[in-house]
């Protein structure tokens, strides 16, 4: 590392006042003779200033999320009202101040249902004609923003015995169709991308496919594992996202 690089790497500490007095003097001496370092310091000051300004400018979500929150609060109350005395795992607050708890089986069931609902969102947002990519929220205020479809309170009250692991693949056909559409569009437009971009896209798709396959294989041996289910849903969503972005690139080049 050259003396110049050494000081460049310490410009943030200088900016934040975290250098010792001796180091600060030495850096200031360097800055007087090194225009590139002085320029970098000025840029860093502007980055920090913009970050601080961003911190005071909160931007609300595009869709109102309250309906989904209220629904989940109500669902927890409904659950709480119907739950019997079980092992203490997680407590929920309701109107009544009494302590309510759920068994691991109940929590696992809820997590699987939520993973399934998320999977449903993944294919739904990728349907042709959807103007923006992956949004979890439906623009319709009456719909559940979390799931992108109508109320899920019934899902949340499902009994463990009613849960089948197949629900994770709830939207397999639609998901596969969405992926196929995007892959076709990408294939059509790939001539508009340079080779390095194509290589990056394909490399990432390969990694994501590996993650999907590994999660599916692991689920065969441990179908009730909520982490694996959520991992699978997330990997599938990422694949759709990457395909959508890559396809968008081909249209940007038009």
């Amino acid at each position, binding site marked *: 590392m050259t003396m110049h690089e050494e000081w460049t790497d310490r410009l943030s500490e200088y900016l934040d006042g975290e250098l010792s007095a001796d180091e600060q003097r030495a850096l200031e001496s360097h800055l007087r003779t090194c225009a590139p370092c002085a320029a970098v310091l000025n840029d860093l000051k502007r980055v920090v200033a913009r*970050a601080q300004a961003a911190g005071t400018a909160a931007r609300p*979500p595009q869709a109102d999320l309250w309906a989904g929150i209220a629904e989940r609060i109500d669902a927890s109350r409904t659950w709480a009202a119907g739950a019997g005395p079980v092992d203490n795992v997680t407590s929920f607050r309701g109107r009544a101040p009494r302590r309510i708890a759920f068994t691991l089986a109940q929590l696992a069931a809820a997590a699987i249902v939520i993973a399934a609902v998320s999977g449903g969102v993944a294919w739904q947002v990728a349907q042709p004609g959807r103007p923006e990519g992956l949004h979890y929220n439906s623009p319709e205020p009456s719909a559940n923003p979390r799931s992108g479809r109508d109320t899920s309170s019934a899902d949340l009250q499902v009994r463990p015995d009613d849960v089948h692991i197949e629900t994770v693949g709830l939207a397999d056909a639609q998901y596969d169709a969405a992926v196929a559409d995007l892959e076709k569009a990408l294939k059509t437009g790939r001539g508009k991308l340079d080779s390095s971009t194509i290589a990056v896209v394909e490399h990432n798709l390969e990694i994501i496919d590996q993650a999907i396959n590994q999660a599916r294989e692991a689920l065969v041996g441990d179908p009730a594992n909520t982490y694996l289910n959520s991992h699978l849903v997330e990997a599938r969503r990422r694949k759709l996202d990457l395909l959508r972005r890559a396809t968008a690139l081909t249209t940007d080049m038009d």
Partner: protein
Amino acid sequence: MTLSGETPVRSGLDADVALAAGGDTSAFERLYQANVGRIHSLTRRMLGSHEADEVTQDIFVRTWQKLGQFRGESAFSTWLHRLAVNVVIEKRRSFAIQRERMTDDVNALDMLTVPAGRADLTVDFEHAIEQLPPGAREIFVLHDVEGYKHREIAVMLDIATGTSKRQLHRARMLMRKHLGGL
């Protein structure tokens, strides 16, 4: 702000916190409306816009569940913000393995996607934050946007203070590059 100007606002918020803790969802909705912008901005910057809506909902549901633990020792917004940071960090950890495997390359894609001829396009600052690699992004947001100190970030993320400083500098340099010619 004068005391006379501050008191009614705080009283209203305090009342809503007390009402919400007693089970009043209308009061809780007012707390939500007053704070959702800041919380959603935090989640969007830390996790990306794809995750922000869902995690914001998670945060407010968690807040509802934990309202009984709020003792009023700090402002409600401060307590909520810290709770939100904790939820966001939990979420990040739950996806850590996948992110380690994929994100750097995915973000490399973003760096490649601005054709040279279009480099004059104004790149949105928020979008630039989203393009940062996860480790650098969360520290940039916590330090430069949210105002946490390195020692606080080190505790939150269970990392060394020096790591926090290095990642912050890395993030700033990437932001400088990504925003080219600020």
